[in-house]
């Protein structure tokens, strides 16, 4: 059993309500932080914990907090990113639905650390029922003196507001989120200035993911150093993984980052293996934008070492033979799935979600979708595969926000590792309409060159 810091109490009967949550030890971190620690000390603990942003980029949270500008007389804001729209990712929803007070508790401590008197949760519009759950939790916290004016009598005022989005993946990008929170289209801003200097209403702003802010609670309770002892290397603490696709037990799992990918997929504690005794073909371990890997490179690195569920091990080998932890959206494909079709579906997603501000992204995503559609439906040419490669190269790094990269990487990785499946589609257009390429050699052991 791996250690649980966030979801340990998620299934206690009634934990969604304040009384039960409090009885189970909730809001202790607020008491500790507000009464015995100053804002700087809290930031220090978070730095010591090694906590990395759980929204996808993995940027150290404490460091981000220390960048916030503090001009005299200008309000600052903390914004919680609950937009959660990366395909494969549904962990924040789970946390907010089952244990909403954990997020509220983390938000109070974090707001105090950053000096935010009005903190906003920006939640994707489709999670409409979760808005009610959060607003109820906020109301309960207020009734019990943990929110509102003069919290715990120390002279700190804080309110939390829940703002619904309205269906746009791009609003998960922090500057687009800020624009949306200002009542505008979700067009990402050019950085600099960074939100830490000019964010919401041009005021210093920190944007953090739901899971990141919830993790502040155990960090304050146990101390940053203790937290950092869990996990391995720069992957400290626990991580929520939302597992989906072709597995026996889809769902949200809290892991400490020392288990292997193989254990995560096959053990009964987690995904419980692949249904119907089928074989593993491929996996996208960190949400749709991270590179897909064939089974053999997923379970072992190119050097033949076991691959683990943590930031460093998943990215071992770089983009050539590795992938990324991303948001923890773990998507499994069994031997009967078609990589071309799956890549097409993701390409359509990114075309749909491009905000349209930069031409490489706007035009490139549409073009990639069209070519992939041709290949999938039997009208592709071999040169299309090189063309796809060329287009994704031209998007990557040439756009205002990372959505361009997020759209390019899945296509690049699919071609890099599954080129023969693409070629088979082009060369056998009729057969490809009737059956899938199958497992092929994608699970074969990798040949590791012996070094002297």
């Amino acid at each position, binding site marked *: 059993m791996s250690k649980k810091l966030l979801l340990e109490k998620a299934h206690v009967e009634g934990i969604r309500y304040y009384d039960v949550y409090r009885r189970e030890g909730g809001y202790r971190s607020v008491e500790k932080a507000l009464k015995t620690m100053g804002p700087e000390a809290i930031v220090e603990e978070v730095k010591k914990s090694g906590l990395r942003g759980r929204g996808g980029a993995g940027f150290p949270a404490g460091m981000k907090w220390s960048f916030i500008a503090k001009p005299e007389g200008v*309000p600052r804001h903390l914004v919680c990113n609950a937009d959660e729209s990366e395909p494969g990712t549904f962990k924040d929803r789970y946390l907010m639905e089952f244990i909403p007070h954990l997020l509220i508790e983390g938000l109070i401590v974090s707001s105090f650390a950053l000096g935010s008197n009005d903190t906003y949760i920006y939640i994707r519009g489709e999670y409409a029922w979760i808005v009610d759950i959060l607003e109820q939790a906020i109301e309960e916290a207020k009734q019990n003196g943990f929110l509102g004016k003069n919290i715990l009598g120390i002279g700190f005022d804080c309110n939390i507001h829940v703002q619904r989005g309205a269906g746009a993946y791009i609003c998960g990008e922090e500057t687009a989120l800020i624009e949306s929170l200002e009542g505008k289209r979700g067009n990402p801003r050019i950085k600099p200035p960074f939100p830490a200097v000019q964010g919401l209403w041009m005021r210093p702003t920190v944007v953090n993911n739901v899971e990141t802010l919830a993790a502040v609670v155990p960090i304050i309770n146990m101390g940053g150093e203790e937290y950092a002892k869990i996990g391995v290397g720069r992957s400290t603490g626990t991580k929520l993984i939302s597992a989906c696709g072709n597995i026996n037990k*889809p769902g949200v799992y809290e892991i400490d980052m020392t288990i292997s990918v193989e254990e995560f997929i096959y053990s009964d504690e987690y995904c419980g293996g692949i249904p119907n005794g089928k074989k593993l073909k491929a996996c996208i371990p960190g949400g749709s934008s991270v590179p897909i890997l064939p089974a053999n490179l997923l379970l072992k690195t190119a050097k033949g070492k076991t691959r683990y569920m943590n930031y460093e091990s998943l990215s071992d080998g770089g983009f050539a033979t590795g992938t990324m932890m991303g948001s923890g959206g773990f998507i499994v494909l069994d031997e009967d799935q078609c990589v071309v079709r799956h890549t097409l579906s993701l390409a359509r997603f990114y075309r749909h979600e491009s905000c349209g501000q930069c031409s490489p992204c706007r035009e490139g995503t549409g073009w990639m979708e069209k070519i992939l559609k041709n290949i999938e439906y039997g009208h592709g040419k071999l040169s299309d595969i090189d063309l796809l490669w060329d287009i994704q190269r031209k998007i990557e790094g040439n756009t205002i926000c990372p959505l361009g990269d997020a759209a390019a990487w899945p296509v690049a990785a699919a071609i890099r590792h599954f080129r023969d499946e693409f070629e088979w589609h082009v060369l056998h257009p009729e057969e490809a309409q009737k059956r899938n390429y199958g497992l092929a050699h994608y699970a074969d052991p990798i040949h590791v060159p012996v070094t002297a």
Partner: protein
Amino acid sequence: MKFNEEQLTEFNRLVARYPEGKQKSALLPVLHLAQDSFGGWLSAEAMDYVAELLQLNPIEVYEVATFYSMYNLKPVGKYMFEVCQTGPCMLNGSDDIIAYIGEKLGIKPGETTSDGLFTLKTVECLGACGYAPMMQMGKTYREHLTKAKVDAIIEDCRKNATIHN
């Protein structure tokens, strides 16, 4: 076209969350409120009303309403089935579910049945990938869809519609 008392109270609550002079920030939630209050979609009249309430130029409202996929700029059926078609759902048979609903209702994605009861729409990932195939119906999600489940949902909607008419 105006909010009633209760809707105005909610409007005021929404605007009060933002600092003085930043009432534009309430635009997204207020558009949700308008859509829910005025028949499930945003007519030009509804958007102009929102602009007036928030003291914005109508164009500021139109450009937002057209950007976000949850705002309907055309009338929709009483029940809207928004079925997710993105990768993870596709791996678990969302294509079949979309085809089945279409067949059963005699409409294609994007269309509304002639009795105005149902709209079928395909959407991108809704954050329910582990409970696929799934769809959004108003404020709720319907997950782990099967053909039998779809039949039951449609049956339920038809029954509710006759009760409330």
